[in-house]
């Protein structure tokens, strides 16, 4: 793996907490790397295993669930 490897991260977030937290990070202008894609769900309870596996299949190097 080269030094320039940038992992692609997918995060599934609960609308009421983690997604709101990500919004607040924006309001506070906290800077973080651009290689994360956030997917909003109304509750992380909605997540089934297939979503996680599909994310890897779609090219994600890491998947995060936060809620």
């Amino acid at each position, binding site marked *: 793996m080269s030094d320039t490897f940038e992992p692609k991260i997918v995060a599934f977030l609960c609308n009421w907490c983690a997604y*709101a937290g990500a919004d607040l990070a*924006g*309001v506070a202008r906290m*800077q973080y790397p651009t290689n994360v894609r956030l997917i909003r769900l109304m509750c992380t309870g*909605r997540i089934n295993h*297939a*979503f996680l596996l*599909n994310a890897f299949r779609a090219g*994600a190097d890491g998947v995060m669930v936060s809620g």
Partner: protein
Amino acid sequence: MRKAQKIGAVTVVGGGISGIQSALDIANSGFKVYLVEEQPSVGGIMARLDKTFPTNDCSSCMMGPKLVELANHPNIEILAYSELLDVKGEPGHFQATVRKKARAVDPEKCVGCGICASKCPTKVPDPFNGGLSERRAIYVPFPQAVPLVYTIDKEHCRYFTKGKCRICEKLCKNKAIRYDQEDEIVTLDTGAVILAGGFEPFDARRKAEYGYGLWPNVVTSLDYERILSAAGPFQGHIQRLSDGKTPDRIAWIQCVGSRDSSIGQDYCSSVCCMYATKQAMITKEHERHIDTTIFFIDMRAQGKGFDRFYERARDEYGVRYVRSMISRVVPVPETDRLQISYVEGSQSPKQEEFDMVVLSVGLCAHPSTIGLAGRLGIDVDAQGFCVTDPLDFVATSRPGIFVSGVFQGPKDIPDSVQQGSSAAAASTALLSEARGSLIHVPPRPEEKDVKGQKPRIGVFVCHCGINIAGVVKVDEVAEYAMTLPGVEYASNCMFACSTDQQKEIKRVIEEKQLNRIVVASCTPRTHEPLFRNTLREAGLNPYLFELANIREQDAWVHQNEPGSATEKAKDLVRMAVSRSSLLEPLHDFSYEVVQRALVIGGGLAGLTAALSIADQGFPVVLVEMTPELGGNARTVYYAQGGGKPAAHVEELIARAESHPLITVYKDAYVMSTMGSCGNFNTILAWQGKHEEIQHGVTIVATGGEEYKPDEYLYGQHPRVMTQREFESLLINDPARAATFKKVTMIQCVGSREPDNLYCSRICCTSAMKNSIKLKEVNPGAQVSVLYRDIRTFGQREMAYQEARKRGVRFFRYEWERKPEVKADGDRLNISMFDANLERQVDMDTDLLVLSAAVRPRAGCKQLSEVLRLPLDEDGFFLEAHLKLRPLDFATAGYFLCGLAQGPKFANEAIAQARGAVSRAMTILSQKEIVAEGVVTEVNPDLCRACGECEQTCLFAAIKVTEVEGGRKQAVVTQALCTGCGACNAACPTGAASLAHFRDKQVNAVIQAL
């Protein structure tokens, strides 16, 4: 005099949490609301808090949804940066005059993009952050402000002070700056007024000996909230102000501006003990190594869950509590540290040094509200708090004008919220005949049928001034969007949310025959409702909309990486487009409400609730377990501060029993209940038979009872009685009461012990009340009170002062060394270890009075099972949220009040009962309930009735049920479904599918990564 119909509108003055609660309750039960707020934004003090006790939830996160609801409510008009000048007329027919102060910004044009503030050259200490950071001369008080409209601070603005600058005017793309804007006077026709002006923190400079304003490392508790806040001046990093160093030792000094006769601040501010405890805990969470010490007089943890919170702070977090009043704070020469001298118990004085000192400032009546009260002819007390009926907290001296929140007296957030609801109920009861007369029902244009059409997607990419466009190349994103499958139209615009742009979106939908819309702008959490409404107005189903969040989650967090931020924006738009092509029209659904209430419990709270609903014009069924109405209140003969609960409850009984809208079942209980919010079916057991009741809401008011002690010789010695029994004696046989020369009271009997780790709230005040009464019938009586902490919170502190003045003696004991009581013939001997004097004290007494705990009713547990409602650790019913939903259960359609929720005073139970009715009216007043279409559907062909979904659902919304043809399958009660989708994940066959978040829709986003 004209007998016109009353005006179906209420003016609420004060947009803090109490006023917000009133406004939402009133607007949700069929009335128009004018919410008048002095500041440029609503939110009040709560918006400035970091976390809140005793749950340590984030304050602004909790408030967020309420602010969003407020901002989008069709029946609430927010008049921020405005003041109420006068109210003329009579209850039901008032004219309120309001001055809308000139912001120098046109609220119709300002979209809150903030570009003006980013370039404004004038920096001003930011009052929102206690002056610890700077804001510009054009500003919003905080990022989530409602309304999100900028205001020019004319005292500091360069143009207003020096006549030149006008930079903001040049920069504002929407031409919203209006330097020549003038104040505007408007008159509001209103049926009732609620004063919820809140408080002003005590000015710590008045206690010069603590050095606030002199020594930089002395801060107030409100400053410290901002220091703790991640959105505060130091991003949540705890630091001293003198040098920015992380402190090693922080001290809190309690009662700054409270319980202090020397400056006329006699009352207790009710909240400081708990907020200091919270701040110390959060400090430890931020920086484990910081030593935290709280100097206090009495630990006042009188609310629900507070004692557990206090003990956790002390035992688990290691917060140190020192019982000592502090007379001054002295700087340590040649350092930035501060020295405090204190005396603990009978020990000699000690000195300690701290890096920072936090002054726990008290709550003062707000000067502008006091001024307003003067203009309106409303009585206030010596401290500026509103004078109310002793049993009716929300009734001011002027009919039709009500009060709530701290203007009535110092109180915490849940008490302010429930009083806000209570004032709402009092106003809407007055105006019930005018319900629905002034509310605006938005017209619903015919909806286009898009079924079977292939997606024709329109994409709008927002600049948000330079907020997005300053980082992301928006034109490139729009061009890219045009290349995506299904996209028929893509463009970029200055402000996607502006009024003009909504017209443009509607025009394009029509012109290009679009059937899906994607906006790439800010967060859906605040802006989705706006755009959905635009779709609705354009005749498209509002669920055919998707937002790509390229501001909060892109431009703002990647400000230094414009290239990859633009690529990310394209990705986010691609994901949104992919999802949008699979979106389906959904319909909010409605169902009929049975407009009748069931109230369980016929004590003071239940009776008040039943009558209050009947006053609103709706039928009530009142169920009482015992053969008699009235409950505990029948023997609460008089209340501290005035009022006679026992006499009052007799009146309520008479009114309830003769009220045509109230059906009373005595000696009856609830056997079973079915159905859901708006439509319940309950079976009562009554006179050996079953009565079936249809109702839309249920209010639980089952009360509590006095603990019968099994200690201190209670029940074994005739001269040992409970505080309530003593009250009966004082009132019913004062001559006999006067024969006791020495009376001793023991506090916390059955409270604040490992098995019952809660404070019973009322006992300290009851002890004061009865001591004073005894002194009245026999001034020579010697009264001794053996206590652990005196918890006469709020203005009840005056009773404590009065008792001391009358010579009542106080001895403090600690739980580890409880007093010992021995019989001595007719009399009793008590030996105790006085924790203040640190020595043994022996006394004899003619009568021993035990302040016995308030316990939940024995039947609570069974009822909680029948109703499937939770109890807390102590056996009281558990509300939906300790802070902001104190009167609701988590299950929709259920509400609670009175002792069933926790120990409280009679007037608090009355206020809560009214508040619970206000909450219930938001359902009961609707003929039908409209619920969001995002609910789970079950495909019967795939469902195999395994019941996995049923076990997963926290809301009992999905159940395996026998359907037509004798087959079993999972069935969703739409009214109960919250749309979380947990059942989807549990379903092994894919039969359960959450609309708007179906597998294929979520997978479409993932595949477009």
